[in-house]
């Protein structure tokens, strides 16, 4: 798929300097960064050489984004040295990084949607004519020249609103080029692109390399890294693990380097007593988000839904729960169809969704713990026109006790709790509706290990009591430890299903990144896995 053999820009290999070149363009040594109690980066080093494409690999949460933000001047590192062309640099802001020749192209570009391509590229640096007035013609010509240098047919005078994500990225690249950036950082640029767009982006990357720029390429698609990059650096849990020429790595080595963790005793879960089918999802599709999703969850079963960020897992959960509409497919609970696009219908049928973002979607931060814990059953707590406060308190007390919530008083605002305890309040809120199917989306993101274990224990107990649980998580050990079966999603489709016996971090990652056999294209995996 990626024509490394017939390169449309035939540049002799000697023109791309390899690590043998004595002077790297950028070196980062022993960088550290801590956010509150979380050590996001510990001792990460990186070298970028002119003319190379360098892949930065790692699991979700391995510290790639933090590293990018340090290079982009968004965060200042707590320690470590950053050198550009041998000169020591301390960025105080994004402008410093840009002036030093570092450009970052994010997955979702930040552009002015209402303005033209040309203005987006040259905002604040528009060429001026007589009397300090903007020379619009010159501006168009200049940007057209940049675009033809990149080999892309983008109209300088077209409005950015309406451009595809791929074209918007190219506008960002043209901007970087106009700044004469020497280091280009691309944060998962291909995640939202079609294969054709991806191929066009790589052509542009080769052009940039031929000009002597270094490209740092963050991707989850390993075959892209192997096809387009000369060297790789692998991070795990915020620390540097390995670096070297791509030739020294294969898929297996990279995946084991990225994962390489032992499963702890965090997940004590016995053999599940699985009952009858509870939730059935049949051919669920939503244009642009996911397609043809089918699976079922049984009583007492925890079904894990794994995949990379952006694979469409949360979107599926939202569609099942009726928050988002769907284009096709059906959801049944014990054989009875649930009306689509209706949260009320889903709730009435016995579904509950603990959303991904508990601060925004799960809790009303200023309200008390008991108020939050009973928000979902307000109707039941009503006596004539008033709320029955004692009933409210009793209900909140029952569930918070059951979940072993650590709180001073139930009347305290929920914002006073720790992340783990907040998550328990969200759980309590949904459990008091006595659901038959519980969907939990990233239930332990951003909470500490102890609270994590508590949430896991709760989920295991609930399943043992006969609840059907759909567990969405990017935390691989969690999915492996908790789930009886694992579905892996990639690019909006189910890439495969793994039984508890088959499941390993490598197996999940292979399905999630689409690198089962060398050279196989990710899309193939999707259609095969669904069949």
């Amino acid at each position: 798929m990626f024509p490394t053999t017939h390169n449309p820009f035939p540049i002799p290999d000697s023109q791309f300097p390899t690590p043998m070149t004595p002077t790297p363009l950028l070196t980062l040594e022993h960088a550290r960064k801590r956010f509150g109690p979380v050590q996001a980066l510990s001792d990460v080093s990186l070298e970028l050489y002119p003319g190379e494409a360098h892949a930065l690999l790692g699991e979700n949460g391995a510290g790639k984004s933090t590293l990018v933000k340090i290079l982009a001047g968004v965060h200042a590192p707590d320690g470590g040295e950053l050198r550009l062309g041998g000169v020591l640099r301390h960025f105080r802001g994004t402008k410093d990084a840009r002036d030093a020749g570092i450009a970052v192209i994010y997955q979702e570009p930040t552009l002015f949607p209402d303005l033209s391509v040309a203005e987006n590229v040259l905002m604040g640096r528009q060429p001026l004519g007589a009397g300090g007035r903007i020379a619009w013609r010159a501006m168009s010509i200049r940007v057209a020249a940049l675009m033809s240098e990149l080999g892309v047919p983008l109209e300088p005078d077209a409005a950015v609103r309406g451009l595809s994500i791929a074209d918007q990225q190219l506008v960002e690249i043209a901007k970087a080029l106009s700044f004469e950036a020497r280091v280009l950082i691309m944060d998962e640029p291909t995640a939202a692109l079609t294969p054709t767009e991806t191929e066009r982006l790589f052509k542009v990357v080769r052009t940039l390399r031929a000009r002597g720029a270094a490209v740092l390429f963050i991707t989850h698609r390993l075959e892209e890294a192997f096809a387009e990059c000369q060297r790789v650096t692998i991070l795990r849990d915020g620390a540097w693990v390995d670096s070297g020429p791509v030739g020294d790595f294969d898929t297996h080595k990279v995946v084991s380097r990225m994962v390489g963790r032992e499963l702890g005793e965090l997940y004590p879960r016995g053999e599940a007593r699985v009952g009858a089918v509870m939730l059935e999802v049949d051919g669920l599709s939503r244009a642009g988000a996911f397609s043809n999703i089918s699976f079922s969850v049984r009583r007492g079963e925890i079904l894990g839904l794994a995949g990379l960020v952006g694979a469409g897992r949360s979107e599926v959960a939202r569609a099942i729960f009726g928050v988002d509409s769907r284009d096709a497919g059906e959801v049944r609970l014990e054989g009875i169809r649930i009306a689509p696009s209706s949260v009320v219908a889903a709730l009435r049928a016995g579904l509950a969704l603990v959303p991904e973002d508990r601060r925004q979607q799960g809790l009303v931060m200023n309200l008390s713990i008991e108020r939050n814990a009973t928000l979902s059953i307000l109707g039941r707590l009503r006596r004539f026109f008033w709320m029955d406060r004692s009933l409210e308190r009793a209900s909140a007390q029952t569930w918070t006790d059951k979940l072993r919530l650590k709180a001073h008083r139930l009347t305290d605002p929920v914002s006073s709790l720790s992340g783990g305890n907040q998550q328990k309040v969200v759980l309590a809120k949904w459990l008091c509706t006595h659901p038959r199917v519980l969907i939990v989306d990233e239930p332990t993101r951003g909470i500490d290990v102890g609270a994590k274990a508590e949430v896991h224990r709760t989920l295991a107990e609930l399943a043992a009591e006969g609840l059907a649980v759909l567990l969405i998580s990017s935390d691989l050990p969690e999915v492996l430890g908790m789930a009886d079966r694992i579905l892996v999603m990639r690019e909006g489709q189910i890439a495969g299903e793994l039984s508890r016996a088959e499941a390993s971090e490598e197996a999940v990652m292979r399905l999630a990144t689409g690198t089962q056999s060398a050279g196989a294209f990710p899309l193939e995996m999707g259609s095969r896995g669904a069949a």
Partner: protein
Amino acid sequence: MTAQTSPPAARVSSSWLSRLLRARELSLILILVVLVLGTGLVNERFLSAQNLRDMLLNVSLIALAVVGQTLVLLMRHVDLSVSSVVGLSAYLSGMAFVTFPGLPWPLALLGGLAFGAVLGVINGLLVAYGRVPALVATLGTLYVFRGVDYAIVRGGQINASQLPASFLEVATGSLLGLPLVVWLTLAALIGFSVYLRSYRAGREYYAVGSSAEAAVLAGIAVSRRTLIGFTLSGAIAGLVGVLYLARYGTVDATAGTGLELQVVAAAVVGGVSISGGVGTLAGAGIGALLLGVIASALVTLRAPAFWQQAIQGALLLLAISTDALLSRRAARAAKLARTEQAARAKQSAGTEQAAPQERVP
């Protein structure tokens, strides 16, 4: 490397945004012509020189205030305090003429500008540095400035007889057939149009309103730009206040009340987006003209007086919802075309790959 690029002049017309904007202004002018001629047919007095002149005078005060409002709206803010600035500036300049009868009127205009600028700075500081949402900040100052006005006026009134004739000439006199107020408004519209279109500083208003985040990344001092925008809006409103005094002669504590919504409405009808980043002063000016003509036409056509406001409001809603509908449809069409294209690309890539895969045992 420039050889293959087609001449940019040919491509300018291909930008759908500029096409849409031009279409917007064209359709407004069309409505305007139909309205004027239609009303003129029903009642020819509508087209009399006197009536047209009065209409133009009324419109030019609104249109001048629209210039400042547009700067603020482009940045996705709003300035609701304009009417109170107008009222306060009108009364204070009247008092200045009463106290110093010999005051030359150009000095009064400058005084109004400066006074308005000071009030604008207050708004700007609240929004840009105090991080108070513009709607809240200027709603607050709308009442504060009006309250100060009441406290100063204390039921008093300025009458035309207290004002120098040379000053009243600004609105009533004729320069090449039109009063000076109209010329001033035209000059401001044209001057600020050029500023917004052709200067880096002018483009910053569009950038900030289109995406504040991208504006920061482009090195634009967003807070400073916001402050300048509100200051200009205040200064222009202060000038409008002095001209208001010249136009009406009689000013009490309620002068200008309700003006702020007329000004915002005119800009929005003229295609300035309340969500920022989109709009031209040409459009905003035509919007002011259209609203003025509608108001005048309703009087001429003897629309029931009690219903005139309701009719104006309904027309405004019609204009805005049509606009929202059209832009939403355009956005949806663009998105659909994109996903279809993506789906096709995926499909072709899938079939390409399927063949070799099948050969694997």
